[in-house]
């Protein structure tokens, strides 16, 4: 999942980015509201964290503009002032959740996962597709209750496919959503990841968990046995 962090305080921004990357997110960062608006419009963001007290363009204005332009990915706002008036204004502007600073990172992480689940229509922390289960809290993947070890990029790829389980996802989309902007992106590596994932999820070759739709992309098999 690709996450945008819009935070003007350098220390907090870098700390957040580091923690999020360790959880498997591809993280893009912006230092002010105008920067955040550019990233929010131009990059394939799956979820955003927006600080309210931003220079050049306030967090509230940033959210309003993104929503008015139909950018509907979940947004969590951070606010130093935990007044209810700010909370109401932020959520009325179009944000989906808020957290007051200072916060526990674990709580922020849990809220982000909840927002991602909510946007995917999932009811709890575990995403399921037939016999494949992906626990977004523990980042544990299992097939028929047997835990499968995945690399960071394999996890990100599977997570993205499960969030979009009823859709065809192109190779370019996968590249955009599992890699950060500054990383060395190679769409050919996606085929390698998909190949490896298939082997890890389906030792015996019976499930065909990831379907290739020639010329279009990949899709999680909608007929996976439970």
């Amino acid at each position: 999942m690709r996450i945008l962090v819009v935070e003007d305080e350098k220390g907090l921004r870098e700390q957040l980015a580091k923690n999020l990357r360790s959880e498997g997110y591809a993280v893009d960062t912006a230092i002010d509201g105008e920067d955040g608006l550019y990233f929010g419009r131009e990059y394939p963001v799956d979820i955003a964290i927006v600080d309210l007290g931003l220079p050049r363009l306030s967090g509230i204005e940033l959210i309003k503009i993104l929503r008015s332009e139909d950018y509907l990915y979940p947004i969590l706002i951070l606010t130093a002032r935990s007044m209810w008036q700010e909370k109401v204004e932020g959520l009325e502007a179009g944000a989906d959740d808020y957290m007051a600073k200072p916060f526990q990172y674990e709580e922020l992480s849990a809220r982000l996962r909840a927002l991602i689940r909510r946007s995917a229509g999932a009811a709890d922390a575990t995403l399921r597709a037939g016999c494949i289960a992906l626990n977004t809290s523990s980042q544990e993947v299992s097939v028929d209750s047997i835990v499968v070890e995945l690399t960071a990029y394999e996890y990100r790829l599977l997570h993205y496919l499960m969030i979009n389980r009823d859709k065809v996802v192109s190779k370019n989309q996968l590249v955009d959503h599992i890699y950060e902007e500054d990383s060395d992106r190679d769409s050919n590596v996606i085929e390698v990841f998909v190949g490896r994932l298939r082997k890890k999820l389906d030792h015996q070759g019976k499930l065909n968990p990831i379907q290739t739709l020639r010329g279009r992309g990949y899709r999680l098999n909608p007929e996976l046995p439970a």
Partner: protein
Amino acid sequence: MRGVRSWLPNSLRLRLLLTASLVVVLFFLLAIILLDTAFRKTAENAINDQLMAQLYALLSVADLNDRNLLEVSESPAEPRFSVPESGLYAYIFDHQGRLVWKSDSALNVNEIEYRMSKVGEPLFSRWKRPGNSGGFKLDFTVVWELESEAQITYTFLIAESPGRYSRSVSDFRSVLLWWGGVASALLLALLLLLLRWALAPLRRVALEIRQIEGGLQQQITGLYPDEITALTQNINRLIANSQKTLVRYRNSLGNLAHSLKTPLAMMRGMDIHTETRANIAHLVDEQSQRMVDIVEYQLKRATTAGSSSGFTILQCDVWIKKIVSTLKKVYSEKPIRFENNLYDGLSVNMDSADFLEVCGNIADNAAKWCLGIVRIDGTIDDQWVSLSFDDDGSGIPHDMQQKVLSRGVRSDQHMPGQGIGLSVVVEIVESYGGTVDVLSSVLGGARIVVKLPKVSVAPNQ
């Protein structure tokens, strides 16, 4: 209107003077026009009468001779008829328009046209003479009856040059303009004095405000006309509110500094060389959380507007809807049914940020502690508006129900939050003269009732 406003001077006195001057000038112009018109009409009527008199005099000396031709037997009595170019002229025309007789004064005045009036009816009109400004003339047609009962028609014409008329009109206008100008100037001068006197209270208010800014007085104390009294009372209220706010901020900063010293002292007092890493981590975590709570508490106390903020009338249901909408988003993963039973028209006198803080904190607690239902009701009686928040959670034990309103106390340590919210709620509500009660709900959980003074005037939103 914007264009008009841009060229009007910025001074109230100048604006009033300009507009009053405009009114005075317009009034005098109108008066001058009316008086001039009336005078000219009167002068013309006088000339008409004079010409009629001359006409009758001429008629008296005109008669038919033996050959039934009209002749004037002797000169008319008016001497001007005998003097060439005297300005008064007489003519007689026959029914075919031929000149039968003219006075000696009309020796060289041939460019005149007669008009045949109705018999016996004089026709008074302007006389347009080439090279002249024109005067007045009177045409009068008479019928002579002969012995043979035949009739002969003649038209008598008396004409006068404008000289006398023009002079009298000119004299009148000179007098009118002179005295009109003098009267206008006097009136404007009087207006100026009156304006200065009328605006004097505003100058005194400005002076008092400068005294307040300079620290020489605390409030506006002078006696002022009714129209300005409302303004001075509002200014005094604003000054009092800002002073209270300043005191509140100073107190909060002082309390904040004082309160932060304890956790800071505890952290600095710890011997990091002998304590275990676990103990250090625990102390830092505990004391930093305490500092967070202190900062949040003092910040919320400092930014409370309080009842001194003036009268903002809030429709409770509108603002509760905003809170419910916010909580639905935040608690989207917990299936909560929010029952908002507030009706239209339930309103309180309160700053909107304070109302959100009070009701938001209570509703948030209810959502946090509930199993699935949060109910919000409102009632009103003679003095109070009561808002109640019920949840179906595990409730608050009786012996804890008043204690949870105190700062830092929570009835259950298993839920997130550090107990700051309700204590801030109590402070805000009490600053408006209200009360907060913690009870047990029929739903099984807690019931928080906030009572606020009823609005004393009709809501205007």
